[in-house]
């Protein structure tokens, strides 16, 4: 009776956080959709306005509403980041499973490829791949997807390797279970949570790296509302004191990345039986 109703356990709290994140992201996508073309409408009568009641994020040098542009930009950034991170996680899953189950040669090859993938600074690799793809949104997605898989591959490989040598799986094999049965009942329950958490924690990295790449001028054509491009464009107006062009889109990007981080860490705690009820 005395327990505080606000002191929720981890499961309830995580569920609420997940719900909040979903609402936030559907809000962004819905908002971008509802705004339609409004982010692109130039209104020269309303140029260079600081944030105010009617334009919460101000307007740019062509009178475009920065709030609409930020929402639309965030949508594009999230889309690119999510696509790239998902591709990357799937690559990691396939490579990780292959390395752990398909014998010595495949294992050596995958481990070596992961080492090579991590040997070059991330951003240099991103620039190289984006150049090789000839730029464009496709180039950014391929670059981010092709450079983020090594860490998760190592985690999945190690997990499966450890499971395969564990006693209960050896026992299961002795009891006559087929490999497919073991994979479905003993491996999947361990690998799927690892994969999901790995995927969620890849999102912030992918979103930030994609924005960095477009900020440097790789990928998006100018005037695409995308957070990296928006910030790159605002660089030219910084010296004239139009601070709002950079502050609001940047903050929106940081908050999105942090939300995914929080989401990933909470889901990890939720999926791990040891921390479930903390």
């Amino acid at each position, binding site marked *: 009776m005395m327990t505080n109703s606000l002191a929720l356990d981890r499961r309830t709290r995580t569920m609420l956080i997940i719900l909040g994140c979903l609402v936030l992201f559907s809000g962004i996508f819905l908002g971008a959709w509802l705004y339609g073309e409004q982010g692109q409408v130039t209104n020269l009568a309303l140029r260079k306005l600081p944030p105010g009641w009617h334009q919460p994020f101000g307007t740019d040098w062509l009178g475009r509403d920065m709030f609409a542009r930020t929402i639309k930009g965030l949508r594009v950034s999230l889309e690119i980041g999510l696509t790239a991170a998902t591709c990357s996680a799937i690559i990691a899953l396939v490579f990780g499973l292959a390395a752990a189950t398909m014998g010595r040669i495949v294992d050596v090859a995958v481990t*070596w490829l992961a*080492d*090579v993938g*991590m*040997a*070059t*600074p*991330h*951003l*240099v*690799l991103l*620039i*190289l*791949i*984006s*150049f*090789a*793809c*000839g*730029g464009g949104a496709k180039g950014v997605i391929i670059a981010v997807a092709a450079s983020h898989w090594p860490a998760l591959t190592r985690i999945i490989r190690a997990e499966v390797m450890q499971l395969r040598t564990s006693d209960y799986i050896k026992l299961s094999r002795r009891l006559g279970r087929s490999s497919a049965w073991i994979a479905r009942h003993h491996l999947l329950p361990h690998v799927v949570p690892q994969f999901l958490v790995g995927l969620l924690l890849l999102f*912030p990295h992918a979103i*930030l790296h994609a*924005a*960095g790449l477009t*900020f*440097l*001028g*790789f990928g998006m054509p100018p005037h695409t509302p995308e957070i990296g491009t928006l*910030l790159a464009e*605002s*660089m030219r107006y*910084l*010296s004239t*004191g139009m*601070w709002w062009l*950079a*502050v609001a889109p*940047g903050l929106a*990007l*940081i908050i999105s*990345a*942090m939300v995914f*981080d929080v989401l990933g860490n909470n889901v990890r705690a939720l999926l791990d039986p040891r921390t479930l009820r903390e």
Partner: protein
Amino acid sequence: MSSRIMHSTIARFLLLKTFRLIMLVAAVATLSFVLVSNSPVDPVDAYVGAAMLRISPEQREVIAKRWGSDRPPVERFGRWAGQMATGNFGVSTIFNEPVLAVIGKRFVTSFWLMVLAWSLSGALGFGLGLTAGAREDTLLDRGIRLYAYTMASTPTFWVGMILLMVFSVSLGWTPVCCAWPPGLSAEQATLWQRLHHLLLPAVTLSLIGIAQITLHTREKTIEALRSDYAVFARAQGESTFGIVCRRALRNVALPAVTLQFASLGELFGGAVLAEQVFAYPGLGRTTVEAGIRGDIPLLLGIVIFSTTFVFTGNFMADLIYHLVDPRLRKTSGAIS
């Protein structure tokens, strides 16, 4: 006797690492070559650029022939790899200078930026991590953690832009661009001027770089304070401050130094973004130029150079571990 054993282990260690580096560079070079040869960006088009309309197809052919870009990829790779092996990285198309000379010159400019940022973030991050770990779950700890988590999700270039707006545009304390005053050459600028131009990019890099080292040091400090030797010291009446300074510090410092050396890749990536914001003429900005303007020899050279740079960081981390950690020293059979 034992010192000879130590020398031989170190020699073997160095030999192994050199072999690894050569293998790695060969792999990275091959893969990068395959990547850029499949690029739809035509190197001749990228080189000609805006002058495209004024140039005849015959002139284009001359350029292609001179560069050998009309040859099949396998033959190009063979010739390129052969030249690379002798240390000839080719000529940069946008600077019209040997690639190695461009990289060398630009890296010196970036080097001081990276050194300053690296030491600043290392020292500050370590201090903050120790403080947060020693004062676990206090308001101070929460504040430091919030800062570190926020910085982990913040793009480097955005921090740079905010600093630029506040300190260069509004307050006018720091210059808006470049590594030395416009109109002067690098040699003419005084040390003070160079530092003045270096300050903001370096602070940008360290504000972001602090995050990882802080969180890592905090974890290690908490671990150390829960260890038996810390509990024992506390039982003898040592204060938390004393335990942290006299007992935990040495155990926490080693992983922190290693981590800092192993993070050279992040540092390089951060430098690319920071140099772009502050128009700082270092290797990072050159990387972006090479990528955008299709300077393939320079881009490949930078990829190989940065790979070696990251490898050197990891190598230093390994080496320090072997030299400093008494447990590892003992197992390698080298007690002198």
